[in-house]
């Protein structure tokens, strides 16, 4: 059995790793009560590694904690407990915390460009802001880099004087990507980057992300609920369920040989564009995603799981290796082989 400590690696190929990271949001009964009695366990003991120059997809349904995990690894929401190592340094360590250096190297792209872009900033000002604030660049240097970034995302100089309101949804997301790559970061966290876009525009952005990854040697952490997008873009795939990591491994291995009963259900319920393979109409799924305030005891999937036995109600299973680099958290992983 491998523990989180063993999975944790200090190898050169890992750009960021988390060790037992948790984020609990307190729920106060009233604003007068000082000590919260309950917590939303949004992320609960997640250990994950992001390989360098590769894409790691984190998939799961709403409320599984994938967005909280993305914001935790970028320290936008500091974790309640656990360590986050970026290039061998613990970024949760208060003694280090050099925010400028961190955000030069770690950037984010959010789902909805309407809320992530300032409506009063021109495109070029939006892209220039991280250069001025984080790199301390000025004048010509900024102008040159803004031009390069906009060109890289397929926008021409005529767009640089426009406001976000004068752009289409796809163009706005391109601006958000240009801003993220402007400081030449090493890791870009993509939180549902294509969910708000139409099919034809989604494909354009997916292609753009792949090209940029090659051009700038980027590492991606992709947060998505869309299995098809995750399958297409990623090299590694992590599956989350009510705050827990339940399966993690190479994308091909997870898609083709999923071993956790939840992953099996999740992949089977993703609609595929093939009328001859109507998977959706043949699957049996019990229940719905439980609340993260009061999650089931033991393995959180046990009330919906076809293999559940007594032990599943009592002990939350740790991640165990089932194949090289492929980890599953299930007591009865042998039954799904």
């Amino acid at each position: 059995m491998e523990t989180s400590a063993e999975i944790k690696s200090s190898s050169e190929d890992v750009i960021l790793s988390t060790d037992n990271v948790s984020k609990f949001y307190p729920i106060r009964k009233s604003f007068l009560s000082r000590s919260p009695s309950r917590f939303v366990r949004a992320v609960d003991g997640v250990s994950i590694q992001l390989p360098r120059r590769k894409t790691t997809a984190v998939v799961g349904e709403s409320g599984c904690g994938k967005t909280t995990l993305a914001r935790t690894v970028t320290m936008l929401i500091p974790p309640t407990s656990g360590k986050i190592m970026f290039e061998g340094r613990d970024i949760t360590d208060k003694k280090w915390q050099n925010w400028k250096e961190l955000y030069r190297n770690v950037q984010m792209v959010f789902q909805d460009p309407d809320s992530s872009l300032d409506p009063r900033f021109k495109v070029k000002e939006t892209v220039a802001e991280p250069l001025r604030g984080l790199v301390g660049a000025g004048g010509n240097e900024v102008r040159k880099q803004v031009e390069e970034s906009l060109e890289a995302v397929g926008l021409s100089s005529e767009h640089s004087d426009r406001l976000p309101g004068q752009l289409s949804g796809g163009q706005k997301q391109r601006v958000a990507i240009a801003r993220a790559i402007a400081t030449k970061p090493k890791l870009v966290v993509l939180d549902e980057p294509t969910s708000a876009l139409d099919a034809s525009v989604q494909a354009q952005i997916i292609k753009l992300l792949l090209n940029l990854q090659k051009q700038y040697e980027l590492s991606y952490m992709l947060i998505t609920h869309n299995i098809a997008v995750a399958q297409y873009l990623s090299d590694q795939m992590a599956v989350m369920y009510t705050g827990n990591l339940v399966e993690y491994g190479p994308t091909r291995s997870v898609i083709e040989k999923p071993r956790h009963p939840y992953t099996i259900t999740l992949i089977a319920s993703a609609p595929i564009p093939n009328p001859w393979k109507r998977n959706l109409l043949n699957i049996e799924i019990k229940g719905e995603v439980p609340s993260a305030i009061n999650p089931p005891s033991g393995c959180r999937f046990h009330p919906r799981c076809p293999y559940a036995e007594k032990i599943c109600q009592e002990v939350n299973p740790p991640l165990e290796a089932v194949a090289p680099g492929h980890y599953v958290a299930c007591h009865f992983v042998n039954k799904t082989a």
Partner: protein
Amino acid sequence: MASTNSNLLSIRDLTIEYAGSDGTLTAVDQVSLDVPQNKLIAVVGESGCGKSTLGLSIIGLLPTPPAKIAGGKINYKDIDLVPLTEKQRREFRGTEIAMIFQEPLTSLNPVYKVGDQIAEAILVREIRRTKKSQLAANTDIMQKTYSSRSIQTTRIPRFRRHLTSQLRTEIIDALKLVRIADPEQVIERYPFELSGGMRQRVMIAMAISQKPSLLVADEPTTALDVTTQAQVLKLMKELMDEVKTSIFLVTHDLAVASQVADQVIVMYAGEIVEIANVYDLFSDPLHPYSKGLLSCIPAGYKEDTNLEPIPGNVPNLLNPPVGCRFAPRCPYVMKICKEKKPKLVESKQGHLVECFLYGN
């Protein structure tokens, strides 16, 4: 387009315009389609293609103004719905044509319990039924008075009035029909106490309890998680056969359409560009837009398959391109495409396409 009597709904040359401060845009432009009995028709397209407007026009819920039906017919069981007054249309809504919306939390009333809301749907159905039979008898003056009472004044279970046991059984049956595990408890809950999937099931229960012949579903699973989406789609497909209804499914997701539809209608910029049986559309898409849309869906791995995005953006409908509306983005564009508008023609048996590459 063969017009036969077996069609539940047939739309001919329907044009819908929206008046705005920047001018009038044509959201649906001369659209013709048929919905046969007990079939699932999926309308797919990107945002702004007019698919939701088309769905709303069938059930008569277009916001007028700004929307206006500028021409065409919506024939439902040989009755043209377009010229009907609001009062006449209401007779169809619910009992003949029902609707499920995308976001169940905004379409359910937050201050009434689930059971009361379903009861209302059932009572409307019963009132209309008795009204019809009484109008047929039409002798007793008292009965006439009763039948002319409007539905609003007869609306029943508002203030936690006790549900009669018969009504209660009917509500429970409706909830059981949509596979809700503990209907007795769900009756007493408010919509916010239910999960997204449960709420959508309640919406479906309300729609189905009226036993409509046609169900318009506008993005019914877009707000739901994938496992819940699978459950809801499976349920809709099963109920379609149980209650013998047709479903007009509006969706942006081609994968969803491929999983459940019998026939697929592809819309682009307010026009129907292709109508085909689901198998024909996915094995042999004819229109360049349909082809493009299919090659845009990520399926497989980046190492093995190449995504081919459609260049450019959806046109602005205030100022649509002359000729074929897809011409500026089309890889097969010819001179004629920029001058003349193609017509929707039958290229193969039951496979219609609007493109100069195929006849016209």
